[in-house]
C-alpha cells in the first residue's frame, strides 16, 4: 500500500489535469465537504465533548474513576501481548512464504487473509466454543489446570490476536517479495549464520515496513471491540478494555466519561496516522535505495 502511494507523489507531476477549472474546483470542494462531514467534524466533536467540563474534568473522568483506570491498565497488557505474538509469528510467516516455494504456500497465504472475512463477533464466538468452562471443547483440560480463558484476560488477548493476524505478515510479504533475496544469498555464500543474516541483512531492509505493520496492528488491537466484547463477559475491573469502557460509560449515560476515554483512543489513532506518514517516507527512501543499488 505504502509503496504505491509514494509512487503517487512521484509520477503525479507529469499528469496534466485538463478538466476545466470550475470542474476541478467543484470536485475538490465536494471532497472537502464529504471529508468534513464524515471525518473532520466527528474528530473535532470528540474533543469538544471530552473537554466540555474543562481540562480538570477531563482528567478526573480519566484517572479518578477506578474502573476507567483499570481499563487503561488492561489495554496496556492485552494489546502489547497480542501485537508481540503477531509480530514475531508474522515475521516468521513472511520469511517462510517469500523465501521458499513449497506445496501449500498459497493456502497459507490465503489463510493469512481469512480474519478479514470473519466478523469479530464470530471470532469471539469461536473462542467461546473452544474455551468456555462448561461446554467448551477444551473445558476438561482447562478445568484440570484451573485456567480461565473466557471472561478473563487470556481470552481478551486471543480474541485481539485473531483479529490482528494479517497486519504484520501482510505488510511484509509484498515488501520482501519486492526486495528479493539476493542480499541474503550473498550473505549465505559468505558464511553468515542464520541469525546474522536476519539481524544484519534482512531486518535493516525491512525495518520501516515492519514498524509500519506493527503500528497498524497496534491501532487495530487497541480499537478491537466485537471479538473482545464477546469473550470478555464484561466483568467490572476485570475484563473491560478501553474500547469496551467507552460503550459501558455511554450505556450508563456518563457522556463526559465516555468521551474522555474516547479522546485518548482518538489521540492514539491520530498519532498512528502521523507515524504512518513518517514511515511511508522512510519505506519509500529505503526502496529507492535498494532499487538504485
Amino acid at each position, binding site marked *: 500500500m505504502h509503496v504505491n502511494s509514494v509512487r503517487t507523489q512521484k509520477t503525479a507531476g507529469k499528469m496534466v489535469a485538463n478538466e476545466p477549472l470550475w470542474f476541478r474546483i467543484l470536485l*475538490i470542494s465536494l*471532497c472537502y465537504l464529504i471529508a468534513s462531514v464524515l471525518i473532520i467534524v466527528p474528530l473535532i466533536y470528540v474533543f469538544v465533548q471530552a473537554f466540555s467540563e474543562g481540562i480538570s474534568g477531563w482528567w478526573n473522568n480519566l484517572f479518578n474513576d477506578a474502573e476507567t483506570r483499570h481499563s487503561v491498565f488492561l489495554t496496556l497488557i492485552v494489546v502489547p501481548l497480542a501485537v508481540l505474538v503477531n509480530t514475531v509469528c508474522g515475521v516468521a510467516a513472511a520469511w*517462510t512464504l517469500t523465501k521458499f516455494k513449497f506445496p501449500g504456500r498459497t493456502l497459507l497465504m490465503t489463510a493469512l487473509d481469512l480474519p478479514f472475512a470473519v466478523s*469479530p*463477533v464470530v471470532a469471539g*464466538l469461536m473462542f467461546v466454543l473452544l474455551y468456555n468452562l462448561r461446554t467448551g471443547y477444551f473445558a476438561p483440560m482447562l478445568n484440570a489446570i484451573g485456567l480461565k480463558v473466557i471472561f478473563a484476560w487470556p481470552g481478551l488477548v486471543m480474541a485481539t490476536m485473531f483479529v490482528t493476524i494479517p497486519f504484520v505478515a501482510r505488510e511484509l510479504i509484498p515488501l520482501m517479495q519486492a526486495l528479493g*533475496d539476493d542480499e541474503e544469498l550473498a550473505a549465505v555464500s559468505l558464511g553468515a549464520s542464520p541469525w546474522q543474516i536476519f539481524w544484519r541483512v534482512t531486518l535493516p531492509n525491512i525495518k520501516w515496513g515492519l514498524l509500519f505493520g506493527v503500528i497498524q496492528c497496534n*491501532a487495530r488491537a487497541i480499537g478491537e*471491540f466485537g471479538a473482545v466484547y464477546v469473550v470478555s463477559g464484561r466483568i467490572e475491573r476485570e475484563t473491560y478494555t478501553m474500547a469496551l469502557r467507552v460503550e459501558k460509560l455511554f450505556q450508563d449515560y456518563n457522556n463526559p466519561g465516555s468521551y474522555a476515554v474516547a479522546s485518548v483512543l482518538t489521540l492514539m489513532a491520530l498519532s498512528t496516522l502521523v507515524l504512518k506518514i513518517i514511515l511511508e517516507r522512510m519505506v519509500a527512501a529505503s526502496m529507492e535505495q535498494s532499487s538504485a543499488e
Partner: protein
Amino acid sequence: MSAAKPSPNQSLGGTLRRLVSGKHRSPLPGFGPGLAVTISWLTVMLFVPLIALIAKSISLTPSEFLAAAWSDRARAAYTLTFGAAAIAAVVDVILGLLFAWVIVRYRFPGRQMLDAIVDLPFALPTAVAGLVYSSLYVKNGWFGQFLVPLGIEGAYSRFAIVLVLVFLGLPFVVRTVQPLLSSLEGDIEEAAASLGASRWQTFMRVILPSLMPALYTGFALAFARGLGEYGSIIFVSTNIPFKSEIAPMLIYSRLEDYKYEEATAIAVVLLAGSITTLMLINWLEARNRRYAR
C-alpha cells in the same frame, strides 16, 4: 495454487523427502523453524477455532440448524446486514473514486492533509466512531438539528447503520484505487483525446474500465468490513429484532442466552456469506484483469 505446475519433484513423496531433509530450492536457512512457527501460529489461532465452529454446527441436525439459522428473525437480520453493507460499499466506491481521483490528479492546498485523513477510519477504534455518530445526528446534535426537521434520521435508524459503515469502508476503496490511478499512463488518455474523444468519453471508456479491478477489490473489502461490523453499530442502532438488528448482534444475543448452537448456526451463514462474496469478487476481478490486458 503453487502446485499448478506438476514436476517430478512435487509428488507427495518428493515433497515429504524435501520437507524432512530440508532440501528445498533456496539455500537460505530457516525454512523448517519458519514453517513450524507459521503453521503452529495459524493452527492455534485460526484453524482450530474455525474447526470448532464447523464441529459445533454439524453437531446440530439439519432441521435444528435450519430452525436456528433460518428463523424469521435471523432472515431479517441477514437482510439488514447484507443490505446495509452492500449499500455502504456502493457509496464507498463512488466516494472513494472521487477522493482517489482528486488526490492523485489535482494539486490544491490541503491535499496532503486530505490524503492522510482518509486513513482515519482504519486507525480510529470503531467504538469511538459509533459514539460520535450516535450523537451528531440526534435531534439536538450538530448535524441532527438541521437534518431531523427534514425527516432525515441519521441516528438510531437503518440509515445510521449505512452511514457509519460508509465511514468505516471509505479508506478501503481510496487506498486500492489510488495506486492504480496514479500508475495509469497519460499517453492512453492523450491518444483517446487526439482521436477526438471528449473528456467524459475518455473517462468512461478508457479510465474507468482500467480501474474496475481496483473498484471491485475496494467494494469487496468495504463490504466484508461492513458485514462483520459490530462495535460502531451497537451505538447508532436501536437494535430491535426484525427492525434494526444486524446478524452479529443476533449472534451475541444468542450467546448471552447460552444458546451456543444457535449462535453458531447464524455465524456459519454469516461467514459463508462473506467468504462467498469475497471469492466472487476475486473471480470478477481476475476476469476483469484478464480482459483489461
